[in-house]
């Protein structure tokens, strides 16, 4: 049976070139970068080179790059770190209602510590209105965190515009760019951000390594105390292999970005067109301000998990915002924030394309999905034909 992976927003395979770049740093060049001997110098040089590469792609300085253990850690470091370091200036934080849980749960935790959080609504395609950010600002607002591109529906937020609104305020501006990395422009000056999160495994790098960009002059309190690693912003012996892999993967992604984005966008559009031709379906998210690899469609009268199981039987890996897959009793908070009803949100299907996706894969999915939807509808007490 064919195996077609269409969940690249969840994670991606490590590219062979990336793995090759990493391999020397496990057993041969295993040194702790903090020492003074040759093993350490080799490790340190590799890390410096990786830091330079990441800084170049972000339009940043090398000392503004902090390597972490994941995207979630970077989000936590950004939000808790900035909130704690600026708590004498105020207690108000602004974020959106469609953030990743690494941001939402962190904000909710800060609320329990006495901070106040405004969760901005989004419109029907999942866009945050910069005007609403402006209106939510208070004299005691210390932090704004808005994601660059949404992981479920692929909507791209007006980060640069929001950043320019915040320029004359004391608020630190963080963006979770985990889904944007490798795909959209990450230039931190164009984006007007102070803090930016990326995670290697979303762009064909290894799992367990991320970056937090910290603009010079932006104070953050560390989460992990210990040695003086990462300029005292993140203690712990550096994961040299992971860091080298992250940099290599990011570099390759940006070398190939234009051609790969165009290729994926064409395939994505075919999928959106084909799936939305199924009766009682709707495309979620913006059709224009959208990641080139994201497809998110709801099919009425059916539930997402049973759709995923059927697709898995046909060899297709996909994801859904149904309650069964969201880990709670409610379906996706993103779809609900966009105004979808619970009933419809339960029937969502997310397909995310990547480097391995071919025209044949798209043809196969477009051939397999309609009969599955039809079969599940025939079984559904909600469906009346």
């Amino acid at each position, binding site marked *: 049976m064919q195996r077609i992976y269409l969940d690249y927003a969840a994670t991606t395979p490590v590219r062979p070139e990336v793995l090759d770049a990493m391999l020397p740093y496990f057993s041969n060049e295993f040194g702790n970068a903090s020492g003074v001997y040759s093993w350490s110098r080799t490790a340190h040089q590799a890390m410096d080179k990786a830091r330079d590469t990441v800084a170049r792609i972000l339009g940043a300085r090398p000392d503004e790059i902090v390597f972490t253990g994941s995207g979630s850690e970077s989000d936590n470091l950004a939000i808790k770190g900035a909130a704690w370091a600026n708590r004498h200036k105020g207690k108000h934080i602004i974020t959106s209602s469609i953030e990743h849980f690494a941001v939402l749960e962190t904000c909710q935790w800060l609320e329990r510590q006495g901070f106040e959080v405004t969760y901005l609504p989004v419109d029907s395609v999942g866009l945050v209105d910069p005007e609403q950010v402006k209106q939510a600002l208070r004299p005691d607002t210390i932090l704004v965190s808005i994601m660059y591109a949404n992981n479920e529906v692929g909507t791209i937020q007006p980060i640069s515009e929001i950043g320019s609104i915040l320029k004359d305020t004391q608020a630190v501006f963080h963006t979770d760019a985990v889904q944007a990395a490798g795909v959209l422009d990450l230039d931190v000056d164009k984006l007007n951000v102070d803090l930016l999160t990326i995670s290697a495994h979303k762009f064909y790098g290894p799992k367990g390594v991320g970056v937090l960009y910290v603009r010079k002059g932006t104070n953050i309190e560390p989460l992990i105390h210990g040695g003086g690693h990462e300029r005292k912003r993140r203690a712990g012996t550096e994961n040299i292999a992971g860091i080298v892999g992250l940099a290599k993967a990011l570099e390759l992604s940006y070398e190939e970005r234009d051609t790969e984005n165009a290729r994926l966008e064409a395939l994505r559009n075919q999928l959106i067109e084909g799936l939305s031709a199924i009766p009682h379906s709707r495309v979620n998210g913006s059709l224009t301000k959208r990641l080139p690899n994201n497809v998110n469609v709801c099919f009425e009268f059916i539930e997402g998990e*049973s759709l995923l*199981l059927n697709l898995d039987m046909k060899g297709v890996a996909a994801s859904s915002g149904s309650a069964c897959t969201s880990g709670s009793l409610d379906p996706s908070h993103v779809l609900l924030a966009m105004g979808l009803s*619970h009933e419809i949100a*339960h029937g969502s299907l997310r397909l995310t394309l990547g480097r391995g996706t071919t025209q044949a894969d798209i043809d196969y999915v477009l051939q397999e999905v309609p009969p599955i939807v039809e079969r599940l509808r025939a079984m559904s*007490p909600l469906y009346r034909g």
Partner: protein
Amino acid sequence: MYSEKVMDHFQNPRNVGEIADASGIGEVGNARCGDIMKIWIKVEDNVITDIKFKTFGCGAAIATSSIITEMAMGKTLDEAEQITNKAVAEALDGLPPVKMHCSNLAADALREAIADYRKRNG
């Protein structure tokens, strides 16, 4: 995460459909939480002679609906009423813990259908 038996019933659900002249109909769940089960029964001489279901829900919801139609077919109403959600889960070689509560409602739907029959035949 699902047993082979669950996957079998999910892939090849038994007794899907409706009964036009049903003796009783039971429905539980709601679309908001993502699971609705509807069961139709035909009763003759106090025995379930035909049973059909339609379900909107996850793999567990469909599999439990399917297997309960097999468990209830040919049983007297008193016997069928004794089938518990736990027995349904056991007949499927177990369900993942998160599914025990939200998607294991088939026995409730069957009891609703039996209650509906009894009400109609007061």
